């Protein structure tokens, strides 16, 4: 009952249980944080707007994206994955979400940013429904913890329009 094997086993089981409990508590502590992020996007220019060889509309645009996501960071945050998606509806699809740009914020210092960029990923439609289309630009963020539950939220910015004709 007091052999080395029994003692090692008891110690190991206890250690693993305590570790699991600590991870759970760390994850729960994230709920205490009330984030207050802000974001703003301006579309500076539609660089080109064409129908590709496969019949799908494609847009290239330049934008300014600025955001302050510092309030999302807690001691239990490993990184925040942030991306900007264009969201719109077409007759065939009730929802289209196209990611235009994404980035990884590794720490609180980098969480307040302003960037000037063209879309990192192609803004293509399934079809050719984009002429004159009204769309929302939504900044989504996914907080990845060091341990525990990931959570995500977003800010929706409405009122963006694509040109009525190809250019």
């Amino acid at each position: 009952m007091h052999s080395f094997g029994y003692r090692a086993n008891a110690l190991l089981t206890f250690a693993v249980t305590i570790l699991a409990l600590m991870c759970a508590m760390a994850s729960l502590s994230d709920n205490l944080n009330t984030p207050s992020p802000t974001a703003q996007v301006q579309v500076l220019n539609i660089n080109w707007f064409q129908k590709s060889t496969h019949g799908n509309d494609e847009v290239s645009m330049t934008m300014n994206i600025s955001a302050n996501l510092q309030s999302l960071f807690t001691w239990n945050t490993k990184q925040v994955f942030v991306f900007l998606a264009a969201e719109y509806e077409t007759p065939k699809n009730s929802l289209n979400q196209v990611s235009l740009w994404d980035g990884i914020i590794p720490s609180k210092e980098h969480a307040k940013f302003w960037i000037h960029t063209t879309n990192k990923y192609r803004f293509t439609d399934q079809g050719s429904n984009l002429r004159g289309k009204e769309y929302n630009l939504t900044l989504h963020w996914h907080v990845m913890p060091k341990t525990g539950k990931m959570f995500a939220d977003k800010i929706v910015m409405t009122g963006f329009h694509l040109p009525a004709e190809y250019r």
Partner: protein
Amino acid sequence: MGWIGETLDSIKSLQIRQVLTQAISLGMIVTSALIIWKGLMCVTGSESPVVVVLSGSMEPGFKRGDILFLHMSKDPIRAGEIVVFNVDGREIPIVHRVIKVHEHQDTGEVDVLTKGDNNFGDDRLSVCARSALVASASYHGESCRVLTLCWLGDNYHD
């Protein structure tokens, strides 16, 4: 003939009860592990509720060797969620993030395009076949769900 007698003696001297008790304890341990595993499969609704991250395509978020708890949920897949899926013919599941979503009006089916955070290109280059969603990633709980096939191959040729 002497050794047969000795063998028989040694067998008789074994305490059958003790041996049987030990065999049953071992069986109980194995079946409890199996019950927990199958129970997890039921609760999460996923074929493989726990997976290990095998590639570095989601770094620095998920590193090789990280353990993920998966969970299928009823909500439709949305951009930004992390999903785990199998590609036709390959057993190793892929853990990537959804970057494009097209949800059909009539059927509610969702076409998605995925990309690993650490990869330069999206998955239409490397993942060329129809993929079936094994389960949705839930690094301790984030859920996304998919019950439909998700591949945009036809519409996204360049």
